[in-house]
């Protein structure tokens, strides 16, 4: 596969390490009352969609950026690639 890196252009997916669903960005707040339940769902449960999925890839053999790749799990077509840092910020993650 080829991932069109937003900063570096197309790169072989072999340079990347795969983590999984981009929902892993949404780490729950440990201070909430049902933190245990939230962390369980966050870490263990997956939509595992057959179709377009947003997922985390790490450019370990490149610029060390984490990317959010939108990829179809039926066809492997990649329709969007973003820097995970930007996605995280856009979702309100900060400090």
């Amino acid at each position, binding site marked *: 596969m080829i991932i069109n890196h937003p900063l570096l252009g197309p790169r072989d997916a072999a340079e990347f390490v795969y983590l999984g669903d981009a929902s892993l960005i949404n780490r729950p707040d440990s201070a909430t009352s049902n933190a245990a339940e939230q962390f369980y769902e966050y870490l263990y449960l997956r939509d595992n969609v057959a179709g377009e999925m947003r997922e985390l890839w790490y450019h370990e053999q490149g610029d060390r950026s984490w990317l959010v790749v939108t990829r179809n799990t039926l066809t492997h*077509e990649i329709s969007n690639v973003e820097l995970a840092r930007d996605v995280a910020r856009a979702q309100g993650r900060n400090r």
Partner: protein
Amino acid sequence: MSQVNRIEQGLVDTNRELKFTFNDKLYIAHPGDTLASALLANGQRLVGRSFKYHRPRGIFSCGSEEPNALVELRRGAYLEPNTRATVTELFDGLQARSQNHRGPLGFDLMGINDLLSPFLSAGFYYKTFMWPKAFWEKLYEPVIRASAGLGSLSGLPDPDSYDKGFLHADILIIGAGSAGLSAALLAGESGARVILADEDFKLGGRLHAETLQVDGKSGSQWATSTVKTLSKMDNVRLMSRTTVYGAFDHGIYGALERKTDHLASAHGMPRQVLWRIYAKRSIVCTGATERSIAFGNNDRPGVMLAGAVRAYANRWGVTPGKRVAVFTNNDDGWRTATDLVNKGVEVSAVIDSRSIEAPASVAGASIIMGTNVIDTMGRAGIHTIALSNKQTIKCDCLAVSGGWNPNVHLTCHQRGRPSWNEKQACFLPDGVLPPGMHVAGAANGALSLSSAINSGFLVATDVLQSLNLNAAKMPSVNADDESTNIEPFWHSKQSTKRCWIDLQNDVTTKDIVVSHQDGFRAVEHLKRYTTLGMATDQGKTSNVLGLAIMAEHSGKSIQETGTTIFRPPYSPVPIGALAGRSRGKEFKPTRKTPSHDWAEARGAVFVETGNWLRAQWFPIEGETHWRESVDREVLQTRNSVGICDVSTLGKIDVQGKDAGEFLDRVYANTFSTLAVGKVRYGIMLREDGILMDDGTTARMGEHHYVMTTTTANAVSVFRHLEFCRQCLWPGLDVQLISATEQWAQYAVAGPNARKLLQKVVDPDFPIDNENFPFMACSDITVCGGIGARLFRISFSGELAYEIAVPTRYGNSIMETLLQAGEEFDAVPYGTEALGVMRVEKGHAAGNELNGQTTAANIGLGRMVSKKKDSIGNTLSEREGMNRENGLVLVGFKPVNSASTLSAGAHFVTRGNAATTENDEGWMTSVAYSPTLECSIGLGFIQRGQARMGEIVEAADPLRGKSTSVEIVSPHFIDPDGERLRG
């Protein structure tokens, strides 16, 4: 034998002779020959045996689709089984043997299977060999295994080398036949970066096999001149002998280039290169493969594909027979008859299954329309055929054409399915192609020469436009537009004999019937039950025939019946090529520590730790057993001072205004409160609350920490930290960079460690206990101003330091430290002594931190700070990880101090049987402690902390023993830590 069937020069160089042997018999051939053309030229019809019935087999085709003519090529370690004679370029001294027979090729003892064929129908083995039960492995299976298989491996390491590479192109054109050449010409002239790859050694495809004309020249000449034009273009890369074997995601293609297979010796160069080609677009111009027709005994030597018969005549100047008959259901088959007659070969008959007017006249041949062949005669090669009209015809070669199958394989590698085209009686690529892929020429159903060339131009123009490149003007080419009319005819219904579909795997029309009877009616069931199309040719000549007959039998259309899935590779690829350079020591890079050369010179024994090589121990003269060396290293360290290269530990520079806060979140314990100039041991959890890694982190400055990871986890911890930094807390001011390779780091341990180091560390940096207490760290200089770092940390439990100097000094500093330590008899120690001392001290290491362990398991549950959030904190509280009877790391001593403990033993309460129900834990690490003079161990056992002094059994049925052991503190040495603070 002379070349009795060589009728003219063709495209081979008859001025030069090449010698080769087949089954040890010497033959003559010429440059340009394949092994198949050479064997045919020399009149060798029988070349192999079939898989199941061991029937005699001859050459069937002239390309990579060949099901029959498989040989063992070369000798000794170079032996190459299952090699298709039809694509083996002849070289001087080539040696080939037939395979898969017992006794001589002409009299194969396994031919008995043929007589038993009524009992060996499809799926017979699923229905028997079940009784008596023990007989399957002892008798039936060994017999089946020995008779199955085709050629043999030599059993010796492959002596050739292989290489890999990466290529990039705007357009990859696959196949250099008429469509491929025309597409390449246009794309090349338009300035695109083009790769044109073809499996043949001569670019041009069937242009060289036909007598068709282009622009008044022979097709072969047109191909040659076009190739010449292309070879002058800098933007076009021509790759002959290169099979594009697979189409993978996003325009990545796998290709195998055969570099030296056509040479007697590789001369040390890679035999083959496996290319990964990145192409923005591809044009599949892979042509078509002819298929056969099923009729009685259609597998005999001499029965060949019609297109191959004329290819041998036209390209190689060889006639496969002296008297040839043609059996066809289409116009194309007739060209075999006319081409042969024009070369003076006798054509005894043309039999056409269609009841139409003969499309051509063939001098001297009986023309028999509306008739089919029902049987052939001649055990080792045909001499007569019988027709449905009761006629018999003499011939020594029967050229069969059942029509052409476009080579759609690559178009289906991403699970696309082709569609059946009724008019052309073939499967054509369907609309859903892999992204970026286009198809031209015969592969897309443009079967005539003129249509193929035009299709190449047209498709190339489209592709160029899609790349926003200006397409050059399409040249006008005037080529033959030969007729390709066809009426499907699959098998002779009048035949009562076995009619072969899959020649290599011996699948006949009867097997299709049995498969249907047994309920195996889905096309995939058919394939799996009969093994149709699963031979080395992957059914290139048989699949469509088989499923057409299946469709007929079940009353469904061919489209409804569908195909099985086309899987890469298009043609088989050697495992050696797919592995490339990955052989022996080259399998993975070797990482050497900064003092590797020094250790090697010192005679160290090395051990693989991941990709690292580390010194395991340093034997000295007179030591005959590793234990002697290790015991000496341990004792000398504990009694005086020892030095160990610990550079492999991961080192990560963590800098930033929020570095402390960041570390608080990734470590279970707290780092923001650590004073500058201090080191702290930290444990890091995964989000699931399991221990991920541990190590010390030093605060070198207000905004600068140096984290140490274990050797094994250096890369994964860095990745995890980047995840936390970029994805979880992008607002923290923190920067990471690995400094693992930057520093050569050495543990200097033992009561004399300080005295030794005081000789090396520059006097500006006092390292006495007051100025540099336990867990201190500092930037220092050594040996007169060389920048270094010093950490007062101890893994051995002794007074110890770790000193780090830039890697360039790694070899030198070992020498220097030992020189400084000479008065103390300082020793270098290896990983084995390191391991012994850490077991003596009760530190957890890889065997304990195996990804299944919680902080509580190793007795550090209280380090997980509940005053802050940190990775893994919440989920570490789940009940299953905090059980009353949870595992705890403790020490074990044998009750009988002479006993030797072994890692991997499981603990059971005394008196209990060693069963899963009674399992209470296991021994993780053991060592012989020269300090305590007995075997000691660490291990996890339920409620370990509460069981000090209890005696349990360390059951080790695997090694046939059980040892009584006492549960003790894991800190075998200096439990109060007085030494390391001293």
